[in-house]
């Protein structure tokens, strides 16, 4: 009975969706409405107007800068929420003391060696991805994710204590707010110089400044995002 209901639900959901999807403009057609309006403009004017050759970076950091500003606040808020949920009511929880603490499974030598060998290259790749976000695929979020992955894999190899000692909590506390901080400072610089929050330089002669601002925001997002993901990972590992 329950199984039949589930199948019915899936069919009821899938049939209209498949029907709707079949009516869409053919996949990959250059005349589809999604391609011919705003994106045509962005593709044509993005590099001169917004200061980055990578149009995706132009869109997320310049044309839709407000959106991304809110988004970095979202990841910061998620960190705050994780802290509130996990650290908020720790005392008075007897179950925590009953549970065995940190049963670390041994790591194989091969894994350990490979990670130690690759770690510097992963870090270098992450920095490359962050700093070249305006001229090649990549950017702050992607590079930050790579750094966070490096932190997590290092934690698995050397254990939490040592990994955390590499970035002391004093420094990490500042790094957590790097992304909103970079965004707000660039926004206020725009406010002072051009009269609007997050307004980027538009004239040809000031394009270098727009590019520098983009790089500042990319670095902020990369470092801040990586710090937040690493801290969330460690906080969850505590429990």
């Amino acid at each position, binding site marked *: 009975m329950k199984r039949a209901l*589930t199948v019915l*639900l*899936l069919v009821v*959901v*899938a049939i209209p*969706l*498949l*029907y709707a*999807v*079949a*009516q*869409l403009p*053919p*996949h*990959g*057609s*250059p005349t*589809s409405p*999604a*391609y011919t309006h*705003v*994106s045509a403009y*962005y*593709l044509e004017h*993005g*590099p001169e107007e917004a200061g980055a*050759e*990578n*149009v*995706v970076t*132009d*869109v*997320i950091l310049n044309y*839709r800068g407000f*959106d*991304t500003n809110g*988004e970095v606040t*979202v*990841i910061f*808020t*998620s*960190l705050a*929420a*994780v802290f509130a*949920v*996990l650290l908020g009511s720790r005392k008075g*929880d007897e*179950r*925590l003391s009953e549970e065995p603490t940190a049963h670390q499974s041994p790591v194989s030598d091969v894994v350990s060696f490979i990670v130690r060998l690759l770690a510097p290259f992963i870090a270098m790749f992450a920095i490359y991805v962050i700093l070249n976000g305006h*001229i*090649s*695929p990549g*950017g702050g*979020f992607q590079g930050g994710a790579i750094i966070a992955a490096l932190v997590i894999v290092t934690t698995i190899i050397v254990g939490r204590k040592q990994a955390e000692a590499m970035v002391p909590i004093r420094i990490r506390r500042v790094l957590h707010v790097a992304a909103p901080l970079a965004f707000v400072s660039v926004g206020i610089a725009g406010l002072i110089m051009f009269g609007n929050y997050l307004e980027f330089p538009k004239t040809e002669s000031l394009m270098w400044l727009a590019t520098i601002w983009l790089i500042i925001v990319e670095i902020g997002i990369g470092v801040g*995002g990586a710090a937040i*993901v690493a801290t*969330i990972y460690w*906080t*969850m590992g505590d*429990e």
Partner: protein
Amino acid sequence: MIDLLWTNLDYAASVILFCIGLYCVVTKNNLIKKFIGLNIMETAVFAFIVALGVVEGGDAPIMGVGASAPFTNPIPQALILTGIVVAVSTTSIALSLIIRIYQHCGTIEADELREME
């Protein structure tokens, strides 16, 4: 209908992925498995929207020396970048809530939790 679906195979694939996610959410009893199902649904939506931006023979939308039209649509990619980050945020909050539920009730099976009320 079938040949229309065949030309839009990418979209149809994301619909099927969406249904797999929905199946997990509906049938699985473990909260973490339910949430993995929700993540699969998110991924299906992301794949769908990115597929909307594909242009036949298009290059990555990066201008500069040697770049030639057509380019793929940059807007879906930018939107989904935002979406992925929000998905990560919701995932971290949901997992921490599940950890709290486990600490509080000692189980994360939905039916056992329902009996406990």
